């Protein structure tokens, strides 16, 4: 039941298309530009609904807080920029004016992860999932492909409350379709299996599918789970996967600290303590290069997921609690 590959497209295209769709459905959807409307695809909305598009310039703090004001006046404002700038340059604004206000503000954060490529470290945000996950009232989504990003954008526009969607610059494989269910806060199981749970999102989802395929060749059945909504977190699906598989690998294009891996670790500590292996960026900044080169360099491919699955299973089998041998203390990843 490996999903079929349907070509590839950047998730940001799904955001752009979803936004146009939303604009058609709801006349109070408005969009704020941060001088990169082309690369975060809000230009599609602008061209279609010029009266509902406002260019705020390079002023992410102001755009975020203006969005809060628009929301408090009954509009559904979207503001999109690169995640480094619309999740962190405006972090205080997100905390007070958006989250504490429970303002109906929607943020689209592009250029997530190192797959951004040649722009280098400053533009490759790897920290924002951890921060956004701490904000009360916030919904935080990391879609895995074009179609999911499109659906997520519509869903976040139609729910009430602050929400953030994270998307990438480079094309990623497409495998969800119009029929794939998408419910905010409800993780999707992608493959069946009870040997190891691979919990992933974003660009690492398809890599997880590839890893599962490779594991299958060894007779190992991996359960791949797509946690597209990091917050609210689907404790139930993740808990059951941990219980039924007995060991977990997490995979994300983010620091291994505090993001999806952190959420899974907290959930497992609370509900089902099992061995976990973390695939992600290991506490370092990115750099320039082609996306594929960088994904290899930073260990964000199916190979690391595959290897981590074997380690996780070994730990599960070794002892009932999967405790590493004494003296063998792993730090991260």
């Amino acid at each position, binding site marked *: 039941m490996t999903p079929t590959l349907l070509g590839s497209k950047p998730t940001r295209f799904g955001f752009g298309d979803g936004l146009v769709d939303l604009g058609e459905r709801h006349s109070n959807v408005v969009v704020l530009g941060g001088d990169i409307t082309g690369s975060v695809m809000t230009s599609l909305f602008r061209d279609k609904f010029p009266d*509902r598009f406002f260019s705020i310039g390079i002023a992410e703090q*102001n755009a975020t807080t203006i*969005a809060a*004001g628009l929301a408090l*006046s009954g509009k559904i404002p979207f503001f999109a920029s690169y995640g480094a700038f619309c999740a962190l340059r405006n972090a205080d604004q997100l905390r007070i004016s958006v989250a*504490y*206000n429970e303002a109906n503000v929607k943020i689209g954060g592009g250029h997530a992860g190192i797959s951004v490529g040649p722009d280098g470290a400053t533009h490759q945000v790897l920290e924002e999932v951890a921060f956004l996950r701490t904000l009360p009232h916030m919904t935080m989504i990391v879609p895995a492909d074009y179609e999911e990003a499109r659906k997520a954008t519509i869903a976040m526009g139609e729910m009430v409350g602050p929400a953030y969607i994270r998307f990438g610059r480079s094309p990623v494989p497409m495998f969800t379709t119009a029929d794939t269910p998408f419910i905010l806060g409800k993780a999707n199981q992608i493959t069946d299996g009870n040997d190891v749970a691979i919990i992933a999102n974003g660009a690492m989802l398809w890599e997880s599918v590839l890893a599962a395929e490779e594991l299958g060749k060894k007779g190992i059945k991996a359960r791949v789970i797509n946690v597209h909504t990091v917050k609210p977190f689907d404790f139930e699906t993740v808990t059951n996967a941990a219980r039924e598989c007995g060991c977990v690998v997490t995979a994300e294009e983010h620091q291994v600290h505090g993001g999806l891996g952190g959420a899974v670790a907290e959930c497992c500590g609370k509900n089902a303590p099992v061995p976990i292996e973390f695939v992600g960026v290991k506490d370092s900044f990115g750099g320039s290069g082609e996306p594929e080169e960088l994904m290899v360099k930073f260990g964000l491919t199916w190979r690391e997921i595959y290897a981590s699955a074997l380690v996780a299973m070994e730990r599960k089998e070794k002892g009932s609690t999967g405790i590493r041998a004494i003296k063998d203390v792993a730090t991260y990843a």
Partner: protein
Amino acid sequence: MMDVETKRSLDFNTTTFTNERRAPEDFPPIANEIRRDIVRALVRAGSGHSGGPLGSADIFAVLYFGGYMRYRSDDMGWSGRDRFVLSAGHMVPVQYATMANAGMYPKSELATLRKYGTRLQGHPGRDMHLPGIETSSGSLGQGISIAIGMAMSDALLDKNDHRVFSLTGDGELQEGSVWEAAMAASHFKLDNFCWIIDNNDCQIDGRVPDVMNVYPIKDKCEAFGFDTIVVDGHDHADLQRGFDLFLANQANKTGRPTCIIARTYMGHGVSFMNDKFEWHGKPPTHDQAVAALEELSAHP
């Protein structure tokens, strides 16, 4: 009118005022009652900000009771209301006192300021659903941007004639996000937006020019596209002149946002606080409150 004993009392009374076009000499009793309620609330709270609230009481008196900001005390959710956003969130005691004097909620609730479970949080909290508090604030520099979002919603989307007011401190002008907001207000030609700067020359650590010089304020506001007027923030006629300029800008569709730089003294009305930055964030002691009420009640 209240008798002197009532005025001097540490207890809250039930006096309220209407919102209408007034002669300048009508404002002092209102401003003084706001000041007294600030003192009463703060002494009970045992913490909080005296200086900014007392110093800006005249601004609030004219704005809320001079017919400039349109609201219905008995229908606070009225969709036709104008909006006020306090960007300098720490100054909220003056807004709570003003709102109570407008009959928006029971004055007695002022006694709960900063207490556990209160709607009168130390900084405005929208989660408390106190009508008239349009947004949370307290992190400086954010409120004015929220107000501009509201003004955009009114002028550019709903195309109504609502007014949006926002008050910042002068120390607050050190926050760069304030200038992002200012730039956007003139870019979007928001003549329905009125920015009031409480220019008391004081902030927590000292005089504003010593902490980080924001002068010349007027030149800055003009360079950022505001129709800017400097007024005496304790002279009600002068304040009216400022708000009238704003009304004219909006009525004449000039496309220019208005900035009123109100020169005030921190702690004004209470002589031992007057122009003293040390009073930025302190409440009066019981004895100081008694003395303050005494002094405030000697005036009209």
